[in-house]
């Protein structure tokens, strides 16, 4: 059970991530994408996944029962090689639906000047 006090908790990484062409290419090749200049629409998950997990690490969630419920991306501009991004993740909501706990984590990727991508990951903790 997630501690309800954790809703609103934000974690901002001290370190930035520099997106390399190699990282974009590796991701793109898996899905058959041949454009390595621009990151595919879901590429940002490779940056935000670890951070959103560390945000919830000590949250009391039973990770053995967690499944990914849904995922949303709002892409303000495409990620390109050379981007230096900071990730900030927030536990946006936690609710209980028929015994299943549903937690939504928002992660924003910012460059020095602009918000690049916002993502929402909804995790379902099966009853």
């Amino acid at each position: 059970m997630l501690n309800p006090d954790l809703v609103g908790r934000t974690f901002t990484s001290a370190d930035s991530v520099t997106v390399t062409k190699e990282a974009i290419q590796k991701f793109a090749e898996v899905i058959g994408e041949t454009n390595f200049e621009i990151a595919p629409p879901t590429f940002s998950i490779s940056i935000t996944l670890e951070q959103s997990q560390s945000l919830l690490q000590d949250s009391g969630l039973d990770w053995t029962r967690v499944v990914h419920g849904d995922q949303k991306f709002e892409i303000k501009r495409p990620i390109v090689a050379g981007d230096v991004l900071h990730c900030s993740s927030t536990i946006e909501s936690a609710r209980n639906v028929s015994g299943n706990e549903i937690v939504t984590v928002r992660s924003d990727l910012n460059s020095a000047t602009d918000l690049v991508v916002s993502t929402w990951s909804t995790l379902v903790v099966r009853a």
Partner: protein
Amino acid sequence: MNKIEVGAEFAPKSFLINRKLLVEYADASGDQNPIHQDEAFAKSVGLPDVIAHGMLTMALAGKYVSDISGSQSVLEFSARFIKPVVVPADTDVALVISGKVTEVNNGIAKIELLAMCNEVKVLGMAKGVIKI
């Protein structure tokens, strides 16, 4: 490419998912959860077999959208993971994606996607919003 107007449908595309692709996606995305690679582990937690990363299924659906608009023109992309894509050993599992335009407004179009695997819908409410 089809004209982007409400009701326009895009031809289905088939993407093959196998165990090798799951390892490649794990390495590219950083998601090394063993349920996507280790059959014994997957079964030990009650799954029928190794399952694909939901985010791999979504990434392939994203490729379908990029093929319509170009990756640079995808503004929003969302999906619900409603059924797992089970990937047995030595098997290519076909994920079939199709899409149709449901809204066009001010140079922005919404494309609803259907993602089927063995005739079962695996993504729910899957949609891309693109700049046209």
